[in-house]
């Protein structure tokens, strides 16, 4: 028969119809078919991303400008964190294939050891993605600014620390002369978004007015991402001029001149669709990783209970391994097309 011309097949390998297409078991072949369909889904998402990017009018965000932070260390590390995530996922793929290899030798302890390593790697990746999302949603200290000529720019540089607010006019909560030292950054960004800062005077949420005491920003750069009447996409404005233009917008008293972070409607990194694709593609992938971890845990419990050992083979580990490698495979493409290119 066509499916098994050259090999003698164990009678228990044969499917219900007493042949074995491609000499594989039913479960493995169905896993492959599922993975092909899932790959089409991710392929469709990435092509849609490419479509939007190619017809976009405004400048598309650049990976190393957008993702340049490390936990505990701050800014200035372009793509290092995403590369670390990629590495974690590759390593967990390696430990998975080692678990499969141990299964082929009927080495139960080896399978348990490598599967636990895989699960830990999976949790690390999911945690990293949570951090990445949180960072993406909260955004940078400067945000994206709309300049006086209507152009939009992202801002790079070192944000001078806000030292305190000195209350000049009492509100419901704060008294005149009081020096506020808590929750400054949050209060400041909130006021900027609402246009509650005018000429260096901030109107706080309780209605009091205060003077903002802030250290000077350093090495400021405005990178134009959307055309205005004066500045065009790709222009870079530096140092004092950048500072002047930025604070002109901050002190204008107009709402929505500065956008911080990202949500589904707007983001500080680029066009609206950029944020939506970020959330959907990395979210859909992260959901795959999460379900992969759960499936791995369930299979691990089966391994520990000895279910597969009694069955005489560890094919279940192999099948869940296929899914896990697929998750790694997808990330390789997301990493390239979302972060690198």
């Amino acid at each position: 028969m066509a499916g098994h011309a050259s090999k003698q097949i164990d009678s228990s390998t044969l499917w219900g119809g007493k042949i074995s297409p491609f000499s594989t078991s039913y479960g493995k072949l169905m896993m492959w078919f599922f993975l092909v369909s899932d790959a089409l889904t991710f392929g469709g998402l990435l092509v849609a991303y490419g479509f939007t990017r190619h017809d976009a009018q405004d400048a598309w965000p650049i990976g190393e400008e957008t993702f340049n932070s490390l936990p505990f260390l701050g800014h200035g590390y372009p793509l290092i964190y995403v590369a670390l995530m990629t590495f974690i996922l590759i390593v967990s793929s390696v430990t998975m294939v080692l678990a499969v290899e141990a299964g082929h030798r009927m080495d139960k302890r080896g399978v348990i050891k490598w599967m636990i390593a895989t699960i830990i790697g999976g949790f690390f990746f999911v945690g990293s993605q949570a951090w990445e999302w949180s960072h993406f949603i909260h955004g940078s200290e400067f945000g994206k600014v709309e300049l006086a000529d209507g152009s939009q720019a992202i801002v790079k540089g070192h944000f001078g620390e806000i030292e305190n607010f000195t209350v000049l006019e009492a509100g419901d909560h704060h008294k005149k002369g009081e020096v506020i030292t808590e929750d400054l950054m949050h209060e400041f960004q909130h006021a900027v978004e609402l246009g509650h800062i005018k000429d260096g005077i901030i109107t706080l949420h309780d209605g009091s007015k205060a003077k903002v005491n802030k250290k000077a920003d350093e090495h400021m750069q405005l990178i134009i991402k959307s055309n205005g009447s004066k500045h065009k996409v790709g222009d870079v404005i530096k140092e004092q001029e950048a500072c002047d233009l930025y604070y002109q917008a901050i002190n204008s008293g107009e709402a929505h001149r500065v956008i911080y972070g990202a949500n589904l409607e707007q983001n500080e990194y680029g066009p609206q669709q950029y944020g939506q694709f970020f959330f959907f593609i990395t979210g859909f992938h992260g959901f795959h990783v999460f379900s992969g971890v759960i499936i791995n845990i369930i299979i691990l419990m089966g391994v520990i209970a000895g279910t597969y050992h009694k069955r005489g083979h560890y094919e279940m580990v192999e099948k869940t391994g296929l899914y896990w490698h697929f998750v790694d495979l997808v990330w390789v493409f997301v990493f390239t097309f979302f972060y690198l290119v």
Partner: protein
Amino acid sequence: MERDDIIEYSLDAHHSEEAGKAIRRKIWMVTALLTAITIIEVALGAFIKQGSGAWPFVKWSFIIMTILKAGYIVMVFMHLGDERKGLRYVILVPYFLFMLYLIFIALMEALAIGKIWDTYMV
């Protein structure tokens, strides 16, 4: 009691200790290779800016390196290289044909739409 309702045993599902050693060596080699490629990608991304003269070259080398990484994951980690030729082609050929078509048609369309925006909507 022998169960005849579970029919799920793949060929070559077992190997000896010696064969296992060789397989593990191959796995670690591929690991080193994938890690090296990722490091090269990040270094290129950090040092060569988008829009610079070398960028188109870097961009295409990213895409080639990605496909190389994907190839190693599918062929070695997912053992597709050890499966029968027929299965390999059933999985890869239709997928590649469809994706190449989709990428071509979608990006062409996107560029055309971008041009229309430039021409009429500014």
